[in-house]
C-alpha cells in the first residue's frame, strides 16, 4: 500500500527547545517557508523534563522582546548555595570559590516544559505547523543516500503486528532539509550517527540519568529564587553525580538528582540513590511537611565537545541534545540547544536561498559562543573519572585559574554500557524502604507522570537477543535493567522456578536509559504509538 506524502521545505523532528528555535528562526528569516514540527508527545512539553535554571542568552537573540510576550520566565535567581554532603553532615562551599560557570545570578528558575509550550505558541503564530502525537519513526533516504524526510508511525497495530480496525497508516513527510532535534539519545539521531559516521574520531558519548520531583513545601522553608546544588552523599567518591534544588514560584521546589551512567556497580539503583538523598538532614529539612506533586526522569547527554558528533549530513542536521550540546559544568543545556537550533535555522535559510552547502553549519557553530562555552567546559566531566575529590580539585584549577583554557583535552575513555563490573565483584547496596512521606517506590512515582501507552500495540522496547537478559545479564550483572530503569519497566519474575524477563513497556517514561546502559546494547528504544508516554505538566 502506498503511503500518503506531504511536502515541506523543512521538517523538524522534536518539539523541544532546539527544534522550536530552528522553526522560529526559519520563519523569521522567510515567512514563506513551509515548516513543520513533529512531536511524539500528546502535546508540546509533555515529554520535556529539565531542572531548570535558564540562561536567556539564546532566547535574547531569538526573541529579544520575550519579556513583553508573557513568557513563563519569571523567577530570577536570587541566592546560591553549594553543599558537600557526608552521611549526616553538610559543608556549604563559599560561592566566591565557585567557578564562574556555576554562578547563576542573571538566570531564571523555569519549567522547560512551559517554556516549550510558549515557544510553540510563538512558532505557530509565525505559521509553523506543529503536530503533537506524531512520532517520526523512520528516516527516508533518496537514491543518492541523502535524507529525503521521515515517515510517521503507523497507528492501530496490535501486539503481533497485525492491523486493527482503527489502523491508520503513517505518512511520508518529504523535506528539502530535515532537522533532527529529538533530545538526548534520539532513536533516529542514533541511526544517523551510525550511517553517516558522524562520531568518527570523537570520544564515546557520555550520559547521565536525571530525576526530578516537584514539591509543594511549607512556606517557612521556601525561599523563592534560591538555587542549591550538592555533591557527595549518597554517592561514593567514584560515582559521578549530584543534586539540584530550585525554589520556584508558588511555594514549589524543583528537586532533582543526576547520576553519570558510567557508574560501575551493577547493584546501584539510580532511583533509590535519589530517594535516599532526600533523607539527608540538610535536604529533609526543606521538604518536611511538604507534598510531592510530580515525578519524572530523563537521560541527559554529558560528553561535551570531545563527544560531539558532526552535526550536518546530506539533507539533514542533528541539533541540540540529539547531538549533545549540553554544557556539563554549567549543568545547562537549554540555551546551548536553542543556539544550535538558531544556527540551524540560519544555515538552512542560506542553503535554500543561496544554495550554500549544509556543511557551513560547522563553521558557523565554531564561530558561535556555544562552541566557546563547550570548549572551556570540555575538561570538567572527564576529570571526574578520577573520582569526586580529584575532579573537584582539577575543576577548580581548570575553571577558576585557567578559565577552561588549559592546553590539553582530557578524553572520555569508555562508553557508558562498557563500565559495569560483574555483580559478584561489587558490593550490594541495601536501600532503605520508602516511607511514602519523603521517599517513594517506583510504582507510585510513575503514577504521577500520567504515563500511558495504548493497549495492544507492539512492545517499543525491542531486544536484539530475547534470551540475553536471563542467559547473560542475570548471571553476570544481576540484570541491572531492574535497577537503572526509573519506571520499573524491567522485572525478573520467577515462574515455576524459571526466571523470566518481563518488559512492562506501558510504564516507559521515554528516558532512554536502557538504550544507553544495557551492557550488550541489547535493548533498542523505538517509538511507540503517537501520544504515548508521560504527560508531564510543568516539568
Amino acid at each position, binding site marked *: 500500500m502506498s503511503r*500518503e506524502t*506531504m511536502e515541506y521545505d523543512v521538517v523538524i523532528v522534536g518539539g523541544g527547545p532546539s527544534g522550536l528555535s530552528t522553526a522560529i528562526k526559519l520563519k523569521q528569516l522567510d515567512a514563506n517557508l513551509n515548516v513543520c514540527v513533529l512531536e511524539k508527545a*500528546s*502535546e508540546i*512539553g*509533555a515529554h520535556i523534563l529539565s531542572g531548570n535554571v535558564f540562561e536567556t542568552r539564546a532566547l535574547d537573540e531569538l526573541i529579544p522582546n520575550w519579556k513583553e510576550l508573557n513568557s513563563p520566565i519569571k523567577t530570577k535567581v536570587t541566592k546560591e548555595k553549594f553543599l558537600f554532603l557526608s552521611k549526616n553532615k553538610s559543608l556549604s562551599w563559599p560561592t566566591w570559590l565557585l567557578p564562574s560557570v556555576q554562578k547563576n545570578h542573571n538566570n531564571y528558575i523555569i*519549567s522547560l*516544559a*512551559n517554556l516549550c*509550550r510558549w515557544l510553540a505558541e510563538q512558532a505557530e503564530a509565525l505559521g509553523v*505547523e506543529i*503536530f503533537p502525537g*506524531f512520532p517520526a519513526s523512520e528516516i527516508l533516504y533518496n537514491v543518492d543516500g541523502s535524507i529525503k524526510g521521515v515517515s*510517521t508511525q503507523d*497507528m*492501530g497495530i496490535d501486539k503481533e503486528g497485525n492491523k*486493527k*480496525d*482503527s489502523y*491508520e*497508516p503513517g*505518512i511520508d*513527510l518529504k523535506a528539502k532539509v530535515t532537522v533532527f532535534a529529538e533530545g538526548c539519545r534520539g532513536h533516529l539521531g542514533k541511526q544517523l550517527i551510525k550511517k553517516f559516521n558522524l562520531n568518527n574520531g570523537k570520544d564515546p558519548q557520555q550520559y547521565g540519568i536525571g530525576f526530578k520531583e516537584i514539591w*509543594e513545601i511549607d512556606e517557612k522553608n521556601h525561599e523563592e529564587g534560591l538555587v542549591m546544588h550538592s555533591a557527595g552523599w549518597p554517592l561514593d567518591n567514584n560515582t559521578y553525580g549530584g543534586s539540584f534544588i530550585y525554589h520556584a514560584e508558588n511555594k514549589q521546589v524543583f528537586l532533582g538528582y543526576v547520576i553519570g551512567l558510567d557508574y560501575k556497580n551493577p547493584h546501584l539503583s539510580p532511583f533509590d540513590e535519589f530517594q535516599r538523598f532526600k533523607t539527608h538532614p540538610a535536604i529533609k529539612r526543606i521538604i518536611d511537611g511538604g507534598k510531592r*506533586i510530580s515525578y519524572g526522569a530523563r537521560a541527559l547527554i554529558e560528553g561535551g565537545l570531545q563527544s560531539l558528533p558532526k552535526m550536518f549530513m546530506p539533507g539533514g542536521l542533528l541539533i541540540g541534545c540529539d547531538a549533545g550540546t549540553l554544557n556539563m559544568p554549567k549543568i545547562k543545556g537549554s540555551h546551548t540547544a536553542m543556539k544550535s537550533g538558531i544556527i540551524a535555522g540560519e544555515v538552512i535559510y542560506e542553503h535554500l536561498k543561496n544554495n550554500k552547502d549544509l556543511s557551513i553549519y560547522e563553521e558557523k557553530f565554531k564561530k558561535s559562543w556555544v562552541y566557546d562555552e563547550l570548549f572551556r567546559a570540555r575538561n570538567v566531566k572527564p576529570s571526574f573519572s578520577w573520582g569526586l575529590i580529584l575532579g573537584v580539585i582539577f575543576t577548580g584549577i581548570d575553571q577558576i585559574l585557567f578559565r577552561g583554557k588549559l592546553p590539553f583535552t582530557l578524553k572520555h575513555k569508555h562508553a557508558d554500557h562498557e563500565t559495569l563490573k560483574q555483580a559478584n565483584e561489587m558490593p550490594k547496596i541495601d536501600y532503605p524502604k520508602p516511607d511514602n512521606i519523603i521517599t517513594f517506590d517506583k510504582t507510585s512515582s510513575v*503514577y*504521577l507522570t*500520567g*504515563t*500511558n501507552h495504548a493497549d495492544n500495540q507492539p512492545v517499543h522496547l525491542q531486544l536484539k537477543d530475547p534470551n540475553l537478559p536471563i542467559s547473560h545479564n542475570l548471571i553476570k550483572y544481576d540484570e541491572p535493567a531492574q535497577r537503572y530503569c526509573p519506571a520499573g519497566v524491567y522485572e525478573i519474575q520467577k515462574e515455576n522456578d524459571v526466571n523470566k524477563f518481563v518488559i512492562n513497556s506501558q510504564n516507559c517514561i521515554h528516558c532512554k536509559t536502557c538504550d544507553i546502559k544495557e551492557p550488550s546494547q541489547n535493548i533498542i528504544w523505538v517509538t511507540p504509538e*503517537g501520544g504515548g508516554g508521560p*504527560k508531564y*505538566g*510543568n516539568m
Partner: protein
Amino acid sequence: MKILVAVKRVIDYNVQIRVKEDGSGVVTDNVKMSTNPPDDNAIEEAVKIKESGKAKEVIAVSVGEEKAQDTVRKALAVGADRGILVKVDGIVEPLAVSKILQKIVEKEKPDLVFMGKQAIDDDCNQTGQMLAALLNWPQATFASKINVKDKSLEVTREVDEGLETIEVNVPAIVTCDLRLNEPRYASLPNIMKAKKKPIEQLSASDLGVDTKPRIEQIKVEEPPKRKAGIKVASVEELVQKLKNEAKVI
C-alpha cells in the same frame, strides 16, 4: 439525516488530578486536556453513520472556554463536517449546557443528537437526559450498539442487569458508552484539512441562555488515602475478619 454531536474538553484521563490548595477546584494550568473519552465514541459513531450513507452531515458542538476550540477541531479531524463553539467561561452546569444545546438544535434542526454518556470530570450523566426533556425527544442512554433504521434507531443499552435493546423514533438523543466502537485516529492530512473546516463561534448570551451556576460548590477535597491492606493466613481468618471487623457478611 443530520447528526449533531456534543463534545466536551476535559482533563486527560491519564493525568493525575490535583486539588487546588484552597479547595476551590482542581489544578488545570499546564495540564493536558483532551476530548471526554465517550464523546470520542459519539463522534466516531456519527461519522460511521455518515460513511454508511445514512447521514449527510455531522456537526460537532462544544460549550466552554476559547480553548475548547481544540476539542471541536479534533472532532473535525476525525470526520465531522463543521463545528460550533459556544463560549462560556468558568463552570457550566449540565442544565446550562442542555439549554444551550436546545437552542443549537432549534437552529440546526438535526435528526439526531449524540454525546458521551457522561463527562469524566464531573461525572454528572445529566446533559443528554435534560436535553431530551427540554426538547421533548425520545432518549437512548448508555448506547453500546446503534442500528439506524428508516425513521427510528435500534439501540442496545448497557444497563445494570446486562443489555437492553430499545427502539426510539427519530429525532432522538443518544448518549454513548465506551463499548460503542473504537474511535479512529486523526491522520496528519485530516488534521490539516480540519484546519480549513469552519467553526462558528457563539456565546451563551447570543443564544439567550443564562449559564449562572445553580449549584454552590462549597469545597473540593481529595478522597481520603486508602489504608494499607493486610495479608490473612487462611480462608477462615478472611471470613472471620469480613464478618467481625469489616462487617460486610
